[in-house]
Each structure stands twice: as structure tokens, then as C-alpha cells.
């Protein structure tokens, strides 16, 4: 069995969707991860929300682990468990210790990304009442399923104690179950390619392409440290499964639509806000980093350049081949892409939509316009929660409208951001 390394398992389509051993994957930071999980729990309540998040984690981790174990030649249960634990650490999700058989058992997590990051961000101010590591729990269940050749959904997981609740470690129980979930359509590279339009070039391509390639080269070497955490760009970064984000978002929307349709718009707005959170923290953190300065040079306060940089970052993070289709300073910014992780998932699982559903993309485009025009980058601002509030609450001077959508049958998705 060969040593595990993320880089050879990672592949980008020419349209810049990223895959890890054939599973759609992206990089997201702890701010985004915590915000999205909280959004789901706010919509469904912590019990239902936690269950959905655990199942989503189990589903996509199961597919990932099957593929990675096959590639690594891990055939025996101990080998497969070793692969699972090391992969979890390398992806920046923390350290898991498993003591389980096909009938169940326990997992213990240390420095699990969600619980640890929640404690770091909010622990001194807020007392959390529910565990935070549904992703780690679902992953642990999938690891046992794959190790022992069980079907997807054969193992349930419940986090009993969590560092986010001020416990010394995260303890997860694993129980075998006979109640399997209905199989759902698989989403891999072929499905993504089927839902991808033609790649185009936009403005600033001479800037975007080389930077995107440099960032991809840099992130190829990014992996969890001995704690299983990735400290980079001022945030805690994860390589994460896009299917997890998509399933929790779209299933939550479906549940809210069924139970309280008047609240669906609120949830959609929060999913859009996840795009603000990502762009402010991750993109902002990358721009302020020495790594960026070394790769690109000192920042300038030029909105066109900042938007070009955002396109490069979006591509390198695996979000798709974002282009600047149009730009008029202080007036208008048009982002276009032949694919997105949201549209790939939606088209594969649900088909054609009546209206655009790429909420993250919509929010990210608006946030990029705001960051490009309103942040004084040369002053190297601290990206604090207060600064986020200042930029994004109480009257953002931009409006984002999705004018074309792959999920509605268009060849590309397009967000037009205009000055209000």
C-alpha cells in the first residue's frame, strides 16, 4: 500500500471544477463551513439539521473512501481504516481514532475542524449546546462502512460530546442500522462534464490564468499538520466534499419549502450570504498573505485587478472557470462560468430548475464587487467580524442578479452585479 498524498488524487477539469479521487471537491475555510452548518441548523433545528449534515457527510465520504482505498490498493479493513484516518487528516478535518467493528463502536476526534474552529471563533463568548462535528461523525461512519465492505448507510453516527461544548475531545458513537437510505444519483467527473458548458475567456485573462496556475501549484502541497488542521491564509482551510455542501443546502431548502414555504427566501438569502463569508475571509485572507505577495506582488487598490485576482482564486479553489465577462468600475461586474459545484449537483440530482439556484455563486459575485471597490487593500486591513459587518450589513451598494443558469438549461451561468 503506497503512502497517501493528496496531490496525485486531485484533478481539475479544464473548466476548473476540482475532484479528489473522482469526487467533486473544493477548498473552503472555517468561516464558511461554520456559517453554512449554522444556516442548516437554523433552518431545520439542531436535531434535524445535525442528522442531515451527518448523512450528507456519510454519503460523500463513503464514495470518496471507496475510490481512495481502491487507488491506494488498500484491501484489508485495517489498511482501509488507516487510509481513511490519514485522508481525513490531510484534508484538514482533524484527527480521528476509530474503535469499531461492523456492528458498531466508537470514534474519538481531536482537533476536529468544525468543533475546534467553532471553539476558537466563538468559544469564549457563546456556550454551545449541540455538537458541531456532523461532518466528522458522518465521515467516521463511512470509514467503518468502507473498511468492512458495508453498504452506504449501514452505520449511524452520533457525536455525544464535542470540544465546541467545552468537552476535552469529541466522542462519537457508531451503530449499525438496517434502515438504509434510498440510493441517490452518483456525482463524479462524468456527471460534472455532462453539466458543463463551453469554456470561455473573459477580461484580464493574461492576469488570471498564470495566477490561477500558481495557486493550484501552491495548494497541491497544502495538507493538514500533525493535528490534522491546515493553517493557511489566516484561516483554517479544508479540502472538502462539494456534495456535502450541496446536499445539506438543497435538502434543507426542500424541507423548508415543504414545511414553511414562506421561509424559503430567508434560507436562500443565508445561502447567498455564505458566498459573502467565503469571499471576505478566504479570498481576503489569500490576498493579504505573504504567499500571494510572493506569487503576484504587492496589492494595489484597483477594482479591476482585485476582481481578476478573485477569478484566479475561484478557479484554484475548484469553483469553476470564473471569467470577468464585463466590468465597468463602480457600475457593473459580470461573472460568467461554464460550471459550478452547485449546478453540477443540481442538474445531476434534480434536472432542470425553474429558476437559478446557485446561491453561493450569487453571493460570492456580489461580495467580490464589494471587496474590489470598498476595501483599501494596500492598508492591509484586519478581516475582523466587525469589518465584515461594516462591509456587508446595512446597505450593500450592489445588487446581484443571476441572468443565465446552467440549472435552467443555459450553457453557462452568469451573475450580473450592478450598483444600486
Amino acid at each position, binding site marked *: 500500500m503506497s503512502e497517501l498524498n493528496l496531490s496525485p488524487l486531485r484533478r481539475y477539469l479544464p473548466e476548473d471544477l476540482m475532484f479528489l479521487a473522482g469526487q467533486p471537491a473544493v477548498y473552503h475555510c472555517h468561516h464558511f463551513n461554520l456559517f453554512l452548518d449554522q444556516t442548516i441548523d437554523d433552518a431545520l433545528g439542531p436535531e434535524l439539521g445535525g442528522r442531515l449534515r451527518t448523512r450528507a457527510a456519510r454519503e460523500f465520504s463513503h464514495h470518496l473512501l471507496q475510490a481512495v482505498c481502491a487507488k491506494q490498493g488498500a484491501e484489508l479493513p485495517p489498511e482501509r481504516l488507516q487510509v481513511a484516518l490519514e485522508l481525513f487528516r490531510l484534508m484538514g478535518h482533524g484527527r480521528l481514532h476509530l474503535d469499531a467493528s461492523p456492528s458498531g463502536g466508537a470514534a474519538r476526534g481531536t482537533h476536529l475542524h468544525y468543533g475546534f474552529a467553532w471553539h476558537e471563533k466563538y468559544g469564549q463568548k457563546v456556550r454551545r449546546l449541540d455538537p458541531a462535528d456532523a461532518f466528522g461523525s458522518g465521515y467516521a461512519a463511512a470509514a467503518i462502512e468502507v473498511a468492512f465492505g458495508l453498504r452506504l448507510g449501514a452505520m449511524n453516527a452520533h457525536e455525544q460530546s464535542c470540544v465546541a461544548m467545552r468537552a476535552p475531545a469529541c466522542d462519537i458513537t457508531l451503530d449499525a442500522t438496517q434502515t438504509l437510505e434510498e440510493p441517490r444519483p452518483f456525482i463524479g467527473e462524468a456527471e460534472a462534464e455532462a453539466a458543463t458548458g463551453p469554456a470561455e475567456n473573459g477580461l484580464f485573462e493574461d492576469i488570471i490564468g498564470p495566477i490561477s496556475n500558481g495557486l493550484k501549484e501552491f495548494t497541491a502541497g497544502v495538507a493538514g499538520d500533525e493535528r490534522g488542521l491546515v*493553517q493557511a491564509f*489566516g484561516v483554517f482551510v479544508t479540502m472538502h466534499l462539494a456534495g456535502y455542501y450541496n446536499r445539506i443546502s438543497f435538502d434543507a431548502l426542500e424541507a423548508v419549502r415543504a414545511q414553511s414555504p414562506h421561509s424559503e427566501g430567508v434560507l436562500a438569502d443565508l445561502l447567498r450570504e455564505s458566498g459573502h463569508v467565503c469571499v471576505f475571509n478566504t479570498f481576503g485572507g489569500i490576498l493579504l498573505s505573504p504567499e500571494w*505577495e510572493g506569487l503576484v506582488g504587492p496589492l494595489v487598490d484597483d477594482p479591476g485587478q482585485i476582481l481578476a485576482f478573485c477569478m484566479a482564486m475561484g478557479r484554484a479553489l475548484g469553483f469553476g472557470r470564473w471569467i470577468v465577462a464585463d466590468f465597468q468600475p463602480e457600475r457593473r461586474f459580470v461573472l460568467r462560468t461554464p460550471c459550478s459545484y452547485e449546478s453540477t449537483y443540481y442538474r445531476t440530482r434534480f434536472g432542470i430548475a425553474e429558476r437559478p439556484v446557485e446561491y453561493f455563486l450569487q453571493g460570492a459575485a456580489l461580495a467580490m464587487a464589494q471587496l474590489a471597490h470598498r476595501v483599501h487593500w494596500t492598508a492591509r486591513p*484586519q478581516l475582523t467580524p466587525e469589518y465584515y459587518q461594516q462591509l456587508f450589513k446595512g446597505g450593500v451598494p450592489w445588487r446581484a442578479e443571476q441572468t443565465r443558469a446552467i440549472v435552467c438549461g443555459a450553457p453557462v451561468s452568469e451573475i450580473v452585479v450592478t450598483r444600486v
Partner: protein
Amino acid sequence: MLATREDDSGGCLTLRLAHSCYRHLIWDCGLVNEEQAARLLSGLSRRYADESRFAWVRELTHPDGHSIVVVPRTGRVQIRLHYLTPHGERERCARQVVGELSAALRCCEPV
């Protein structure tokens, strides 16, 4: 919005809390020029391990686990303290490291 501390306690190099979510682990030093950046890298090479993956951003690791990141093209220098550094010790530790950096520059030129 701006950094909370700026100080010249290191002698040659200034010290400023950098943007991060790691509670006083990341510190920016004042800029050095290209010649000083080369001298700094050379001066640190005996005690620090060079773990650079790219020529455009050099990363050196202190025996205690702290990292020094140097951007040769701009002279930016950043100290990344090891995460096990106790919270109450982080600023003092950053001052100590910047002192070592200044010594490596031989403290002979103003920055």
C-alpha cells in the same frame, strides 16, 4: 480595522500583529530591502531549517517550531509562531524571534 500593535522592540525590525484567526500567532515585521532579505535568509540558515517549496516565498523553521516567511521580491517578513506557544507568551515570543531576525541582519542598517 488596522493592526492593533506596532512596535520597534526588535531593534532593526518593527513588529505588527498580522491578519489571522489564530490569536496572536502571526506577526508581520517591517519590510527589508532585497539585499537585506538575502542577508536575512543567509543569516538564519545555520539555526533555521529551510522548508521553502517555492523561490518566491521562502519559509524557514525555527528549532522551537516557529516559522519565518520571507518574500524576496518585496522584502516582507512574517513570523508564524508555533500553535503550542502559550497564549500569554505569544507577544513576548514574537519579540524574541524578531530580535533574532534583527541580529541576523546584524542590526547595522535602519529599516
